[in-house]
């Protein structure tokens, strides 16, 4: 087990190193940088001024030197400066993390609390009209773009209350807090709930065909006990995997949802930084996302062994 964990940690470092190289090179293969954008916007290019600014930002160095400078800074906890705001990248990124984390957490809670019970109901009533209806609902959840769902929610809000929820980092009332965080979280979590429901359903169906479920039925156990105590307990492992993977990959949905609801989280900040070619911000945000994904996958794998005693990792 120990050797397995060490091997996984080494592979994680290799993966993160690979991502850092890919992102760094990708952002620099295209001609033009922040200086070009600024000068193009100004409508006048003085080569001397341009060269001076590029020197100040370190853009006149070779790609390898720029990469080493960035990685060296990362190792020391120095993420560099934002090209746009000229503030330390860490100061720009840190305050945005709790906002996105709160949204992601709420979206996952919504996803699990809706997806798991509906998946169980769908499996237990397999082949009935209810099952068909729930399957269609889950497929709709996977088909609706979260930004469109967000826009529909805004439309409903306008027609019902005559106003739209505007982000406030310190909501004064519960109703305001719900509007600010829970509504966007539902828009993001709807897709995850649909996925969780589908996985719960198929996992439950597999378990419900097992002999020990027949035995439980034969000895007179109630349907609720069979479904929740015997079946769901054993069917939950793949569901945990999906929720874990979704936790890491929720950022995709958050990017568009934060944009629709104008929420100043890291997901929307990534899009803004990409538009401005604010390299230090993009690089560090992508690395942050990669670290979250890689560590979440690792944690889910470790959770397997903790939850299911049949699973033991060897090297």
């Amino acid at each position, binding site marked *: 087990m120990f050797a397995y964990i060490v091997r996984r940690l080494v*592979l994680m470092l*290799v*993966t*993160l190193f*690979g*991502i850092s190289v*890919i*992102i760094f090179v*990708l*952002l620099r*293969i*295209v001609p033009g940088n922040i200086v070009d954008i600024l000068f193009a916007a100004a409508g006048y290019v003085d080569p001397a001024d341009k060269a001076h600014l590029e020197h100040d930002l370190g853009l006149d160095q070779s790609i390898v030197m720029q990469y080493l400078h960035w990685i060296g800074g990362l190792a020391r906890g120095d993420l560099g400066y934002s090209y746009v705001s000229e503030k330390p990248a860490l100061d720009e990124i840190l305050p945005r993390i709790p906002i996105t984390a709160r949204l992601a957490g709420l979206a996952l809670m919504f996803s699990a609390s809706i997806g798991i019970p509906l998946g169980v109901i769908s499996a237990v009533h397999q082949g009935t009209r209810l099952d*068909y209806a729930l*399957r*269609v609902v889950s*497929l*709709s959840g*996977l*088909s*609706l*773009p979260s*930004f*469109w769902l967000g*826009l*529909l929610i*805004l*439309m409903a809000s*306008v027609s019902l209350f005559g106003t*739209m929820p505007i982000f406030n980092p310190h909501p004064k009332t519960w109703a305001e807090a719900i509007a600010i965080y829970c509504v966007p979280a539902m828009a993001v979590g709807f897709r995850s709930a649909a996925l969780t429901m*589908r996985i719960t*359903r*198929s996992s439950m*169906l597999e378990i419900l065909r097992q002999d020990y479920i027949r035995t439980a039925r034969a000895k007179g156990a109630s349907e609720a006990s069979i479904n929740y105590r015997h079946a769901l307990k054993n069917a939950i492992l793949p569901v945990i995997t999906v929720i874990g993977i979704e936790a*890491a*990959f929720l*950022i*995709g949905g958050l*990017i*568009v949802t934060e*944009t*629709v609801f*104008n929420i100043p989280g890291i997901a929307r900040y*990534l*899009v803004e930084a*990409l*538009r401005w*070619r604010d390299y230090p911000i*993009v690089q560090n945000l*992508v690395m942050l*996302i*990669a670290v979250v*994904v*890689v560590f979440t996958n690792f944690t889910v794998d470790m959770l397997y062994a903790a939850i299911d005693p049949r699973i033991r990792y060897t090297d």
Partner: protein
Amino acid sequence: MAVVNYDSELRRAGAQATHGWRRLVFLAQRHLLGTIGLCIMLLFVCTAIFADLICRFDPLSIDSAHRLAAPGTLHWMGTDSFGRDVWSRIVHGARISLAVGIGSTALGSSIGVMIGLASGYLSGWVDLVFQRVTDILQALPLLVLALVMTAALGPSLPNVMLAIAIPLIPTVARVIRANTLALRELPFIEAAKSIGMSETRIALRHVLPNTIAPLIVLATAQLGSTILTEASLSFLGLGIPEPYPSWGRMLSESAVEYVRTAPWLVIFPGIAISLAVFGTNLFGDALRDILDPRQRG
């Protein structure tokens, strides 16, 4: 590796299906949701092909006299802030969505198949290198990687296709690799080796055709996801550039600003995206049930 024998499957299911057409009817009745999905997909394909015949106005022509006109007899789905006909733009948008969907799925799947086949069949250092590359690509969410790639490559139709295709590669490569590893141990591969067939020929002539079923299932499932990703990229302003009438960009233009005054700009493009993805998801599910019964839910 399970091999599905259609004739026996159909007979077991009670189908008197001796003729090709009857078989199709039987499968359509048995997989009603999948049939609905296929119909939706065909509707979109026909819309994309015959867009010039179906649309009533030039999707790019600006008509300032009819700015933000509500849906009516002249403009079925209203007009946008430039007076462009929304129906015509949605009809032409089908072309963009299908081109990106099919193009990036085909590109991502082709590269994924080559990597998966090489990785699974050759093993050794080739497998090790490809596995690390797929690990790296899989460590970033599809939209994040596609966003960074479109930002790097620049917004254009081929670049968006490429940007969406690359994140698809690892999933396809892993599925094909797993299938190849299973196939490699089967007797017919050993038989091919024993008669002196070259490794490349075995991989291409015997292993590859046997991975087609899971590939079709996967590609159909990914088609919906590519359409959604393109819409998201365009919505964020980093996808298909103007003047192409992309569904995602139509929502981006109309977003929040027109939620109050012109809700049709929000409703119709969203319905088009959702319906197209819904159709591919329904069809993909049915295809999975038919071609890969082991995954049947």
